[in-house]
């Protein structure tokens, strides 16, 4: 599935049941008249600020990889991907 979530046995019935209630609940939006209304993606009407093109980051690989479950030779490891 798209969300890449595995549900435990017995969990999935409950999830499906609750999801359908949530979807029913949000379905009340359908009644709202929204012709000619612009969708709102951000609370403030601002535009993107731009950053100067400068290298500001230093190599912190070894420090950062202390959090990684599996690494070797500087790479993050995952089960072999067959292309």
């Amino acid at each position, binding site marked *: 599935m798209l969300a890449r979530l595995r549900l435990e046995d017995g969990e999935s019935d409950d999830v499906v049941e609750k999801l359908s209630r949530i979807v029913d609940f949000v379905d009340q939006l359908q009644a709202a008249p929204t012709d000619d209304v612009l969708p709102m993606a951000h609370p403030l009407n601002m535009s*993107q600020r731009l*950053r100067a093109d400068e*290298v500001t*980051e230093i190599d912190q690989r070894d420090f*950062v990889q202390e959090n990684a479950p599996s690494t070797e030779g500087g*790479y*993050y*490891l995952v*089960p072999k991907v067959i292309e």
Partner: protein
Amino acid sequence: MSGHWEVVIGLEIHTQLATKSKIFSGASTAYGADPNTQACLVDLGYPGVLPVLNAEVVRMAAKFGLAVNATVARRSVFARKNYFYPDLPKGYQISQYELPIVEYGELFIRDDEGREKRVGITRAHLEEDAGKSVHTSFAKSSGIDLNRAGTPLLEIVSEPDLRSAREAVAYMRKIHSIVRYLEISDGNMQEGSFRCDANVSVRPRGQEELGTRAEIKNLNSFRFVERAINFEIERQIEVIEDGGEVVQETRLYDSDKDETRSMRSKEEANDYRYFPDPDLLPVELDDAFVEAVRATLPELPDAKQERFVAHYGLKAADAEILTTSRAQADYYEVVAEKTSANAQLAANWIIGDLSSLLNKEGIDIQESRIGAADLAGLLDRIADNTISGKIAKEVFDAMWSGEGSADQIIEARGLKQITDSGAIESIVDAVIEANPGQAAEYRSGKEKLLGFFVGQVMKETGGKANPAQVNQILKEKLE
């Protein structure tokens, strides 16, 4: 290719923008670093970090838009393209979807019949590159290197206006040339800085509706583009002619086997769930910004080509070759301006001798061992009859080997052409005297023998006599 079928091709070209830092972070974009040493917290998709847009990528995208006569959007929006893959650390790629920064552009190529052809550019949008997976170095694992993650890309999408693999390559070369002229990309195809996906379909000639297309992913050389498309065209025609149907799918070109094959494994239900990235705000550009970018536009290949024809009197085909790269055109202009020789002669030398040496050594014209001013010096000596064209080639090779300037080599090797009529006359006299039989035959009408006498004189002078003078004196003496 069967005349019954019409081929329809559209290209999506991914150009890496030549910035110092990444599109949304301050990590370096330099190529070839140790794995993950240029992947900062933003590139790694760490919890809590946020993207901030690099000003330079916006400027570069706008520059490209103006160069292809496109609309530079006053408002563009970044969206998230959601999918899971290990080289995509956030689980989404930040890209532009509904509102790209560049739309409605065009450029012109030569079609298969040599006519000028317009190719529409649907859009060009900014996005971040993904990392790389390494599959061969580890026994049961793939290794993920995220140095490339977050490198800025400009994806240039053409209209399905291309009708053959050759046209597709011509279009791709033109884009390649433009991005390098603009200095927004190094265009390095080996390093993946310039690559494309090709959408290919076929339909019976005359049919309005498009055929089902296949997308060939990740083509990283002009040769592969041509071969992959040609293979794909034949494959599709064969499928249809055998009564089958072309499947809409993604295919991969295998250059070793010279074939495309389906990548269905990676396909699954492709639902990218695009939505506006709430971490980034709309990019808003005003007219002043766009005009400031316009002021930085260099002369582009088409304009330069026209000028070369008009100003230097070059053949159109030569002007086109010379203007493929800005460096080569600049080189040519220096030579043409400095030398007293004919501008077409300068073009011949660059397209001929110089290019073949550069190709052989696999280097760019900027790295040429003969600078433009030095080549101009050599051509000057041809123009003023100090040396002949043939001797010039010898001097050219010596210059390439680092023996010095044209003048130094001519001097050192004693290659100066003999232009003293008196000296030439005495040699001519001696040659005629040594070959009385041939002289008599010539005089009796066998004028072809002039070549024989020229050859003899040149042999005597070691090639240094001015050929025109030799001709003239011989004719006079043999009358």
